[in-house]
């Protein structure tokens, strides 16, 4: 189910009614049951039969965690086997649905036409919505139990709610069990302040999605293919890249705000997922601001187990590169995602080599920091070109058009299109000022006025009901 749909409005109204009647303390069994049913309906709304995959992933991790709790810590081999079963199931599902076709195509490319007949045909299966998110969430639970930082949950229903909780089911934030499970037995009444804050997040999320992202998408979808044409000017190519960088931020941050606001009203706190990422002055800082819950997951469950920065400098660079390449492939099976991840991984490694990831050394030099900020934003923008393009060659031509620096003039269409970036720029300026203590949190009155303005914007500037970009991952 898409947040931008009447079905979601109806579902949310029904669950909200349950919240203010049978779920006033949030922990009532009837309310938990309503949340589970609503989450199941939310997921099955896409392709009903795929609820089986969600159940399979959840059931395997639920049993694996219980099993792990029974095995003594000294039986390392046995514990590893159980963990492998859990990870194998989740990664197997991911690999089958996301990478099977990619691997078949890669084999065709490598082996040539003679091998085509011997290879299986491409699968024509639709990707289960949100599989990349809920498998990661589910895996983190088993890994935490394996590590001994979490006690397994006894009953399946609350565990299934943790995996399937509908506000964050299909595109995050990726919530860790240690953040979500302790909230479940804690009573939380719906205060007016919570309702206002949740509503504020929901309205701002819908504004980012329906006004900014969807309008930017109209331009990007219509003109993206022109970005790699030989006759395209640098100005137009750069404009397109900026429009997409704004679109993907507004789309994903909008989704995350709606998810957090909805969850908050329903009694759960979800972590922040975006914090003005285009203010980042270093690559490290970018990943502390962009898709923060995925960055955290990759750090804790991939980078650190690989050795992190504890095994020497070269190994640290390799780990950074490897983690980001895998982060790129997490998005899907395409060379362009791989290139996107490699660009970020390479940049993170180079930044660490130059010592620009910290505030000491080169990082203490103001000029170097400003120069590096420009480099960071340019690389991030270039990486988005790879992310959005269909092929590496297309992305290469696109980036080449920007670097040609021939003609920077823009027409009326381009200038009007840029207007839809203004709210995103405004948001970043506000966060920049707030981080420096120059402004405080908006007062409730200011928020009310802004919310009214955003509601007017949604009612008068919506561009359509395009799917969220991250629904495809």
């Amino acid at each position, binding site marked *: 189910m898409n947040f931008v749909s*009447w079905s979601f409005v109806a579902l949310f109204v029904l669950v909200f009614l349950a919240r203010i009647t049978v779920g006033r303390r949030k922990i009532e069994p009837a309310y938990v049951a309503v949340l589970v049913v609503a989450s199941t309906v939310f997921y099955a709304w896409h392709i009903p039969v795929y609820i089986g995959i969600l159940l399979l992933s959840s059931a395997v991790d639920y049993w694996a965690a219980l099993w792990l709790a029974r095995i003594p810590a000294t039986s390392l081999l046995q514990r590893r086997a159980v963990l492998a079963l859990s990870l194998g199931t989740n990664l197997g599902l991911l690999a089958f649905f996301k990478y099977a076709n990619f691997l078949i195509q890669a084999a065709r490319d490598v082996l040539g036409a003679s091998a085509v007949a011997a290879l299986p045909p491409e699968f024509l299966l639709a990707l289960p919505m949100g599989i990349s998110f809920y498998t990661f969430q589910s895996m983190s639970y088993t890994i935490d139990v394996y590590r001994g930082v979490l006690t397994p949950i006894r009953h399946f229903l609350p565990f299934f709610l943790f995996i399937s909780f509908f506000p964050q089911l299909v595109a995050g934030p990726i919530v860790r069990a240690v953040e979500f499970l302790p909230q479940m037995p804690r009573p939380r009444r719906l205060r007016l302040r919570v309702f206002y804050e949740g509503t504020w997040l929901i309205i701002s999320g819908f504004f980012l999605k329906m006004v900014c992202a969807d*309008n930017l998408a109209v331009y990007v979808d219509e003109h993206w293919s022109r970005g790699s044409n030989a006759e395209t000017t640098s100005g137009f190519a750069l404009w397109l890249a900026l429009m997409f960088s704004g679109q993907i931020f507004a789309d994903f941050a909008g989704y995350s705000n709606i998810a957090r606001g909805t969850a908050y009203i329903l009694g759960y706190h979800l972590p922040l997922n975006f914090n003005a990422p285009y203010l980042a002055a270093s690559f490290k800082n970018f990943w502390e601001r962009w898709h923060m819950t995925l960055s955290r997951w990759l750090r804790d469950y991939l980078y650190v187990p690989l050795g992190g920065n504890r095994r020497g400098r070269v190994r640290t660079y390799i780990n950074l590169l490897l983690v980001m390449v895998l982060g790129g492939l997490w998005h899907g099976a395409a060379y362009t995602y791989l290139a996107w991840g490699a660009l970020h991984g390479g940049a993170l490694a180079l930044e660490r080599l130059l010592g620009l990831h910290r505030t000491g050394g080169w990082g203490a030099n103001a000029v170097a920091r400003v120069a590096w900020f420009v480099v960071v934003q340019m690389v991030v923008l270039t990486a988005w070109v790879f992310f959005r393009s269909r092929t590496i060659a297309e992305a290469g031509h696109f980036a080449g058009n920007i670097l040609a620096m021939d003609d920077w003039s823009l027409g009326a*269409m381009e200038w009007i299109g840029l207007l839809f970036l203004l709210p995103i720029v405004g948001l970043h300026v506000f966060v920049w000022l707030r981080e420096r203590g120059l402004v405080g949190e908006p007062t409730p009155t200011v928020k009310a006025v802004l919310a009214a303005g955003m509601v007017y914007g949604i009612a008068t500037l919506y561009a359509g009901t395009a799917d969220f970009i991250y629904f495809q991952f």
Partner: protein
Amino acid sequence: MTAVTAGVWVIRPELGGRVKNITRAERPSDDYYLAHDHGGHVDHHVLYFGTDPVALDHLKRADVILLGNSRLMFGARPRVLDAFFQSRGLRYYVLGFGFREADRFPLAIIEKFDLRPRMVIVNADGFFENSLSDFARQVMKGDAFGAWQFRQEAETGHEFRKVIHQLVPNWVDLLGRPGFPWRRELVIYRSRANGTWQLSPWEVGTAPVGERDPHQPPLGPREIEAARRFKAAMDGRGIRMVLTYVPTPRRLGGGPALFAQLLQVPLVWTDPAGLLTEDGDHLDESSATAWSEAFVSELGRVLQ
């Protein structure tokens, strides 16, 4: 919100009239379902998955099916076609689509529901392409449940838009978007009984269609192959094929007379004078009626 809108309408009264297009949209009768509003063409889903049993039943029982792009859908007027086909004891259905849909999507529907009308009449304008629009590709990847959802969402959104825009406009629809001349407010309903479109409201045309030569431009190899393939598919089903051409200033593909010669099928070519398009592309209502009248008159001769 209302105050802001009212203020703007006082300053620019002409905008007040235009903004009310969506609120003036009226379903011609209960026979019609919503085919298009914000968010895409609903009728792709309805007809590919057969989610409207009445529409599917009429499609299956049609003796004559008309195929083509949105220009056919604007041009084919039910009042004229009803009278013509009823007088001959024939049932017809117009199975055209928006998004410049060409041959593969209607052929997929014909094969899916095993349609075997006595005749198909094809608007040759950009039809023989052996291609699918991106929208159709997306529709075909889905399922009947998704198609049902899409329709319910569209119908609910449509009714909501009719109410909310009595208070506030959609500024993008109202003022247009430079570089996107076709992105205007467009509400279309589709008949279950005969598949025709009805725009509501339908702008009065200003742009003339201009001169047309049925022998121009020459056919490309891809068009030739696609036309032969489509003809073979119709022959395989025992369906007689006739070509026609709905006038437009922005023609697509090769000359219709060349396709008719290539496929050895009749061409219903009509050339009423003074046709106007409502958007520089599609006929306005009175021109569409004039074309439909000329079309059935010529078709009558071909059928004899």
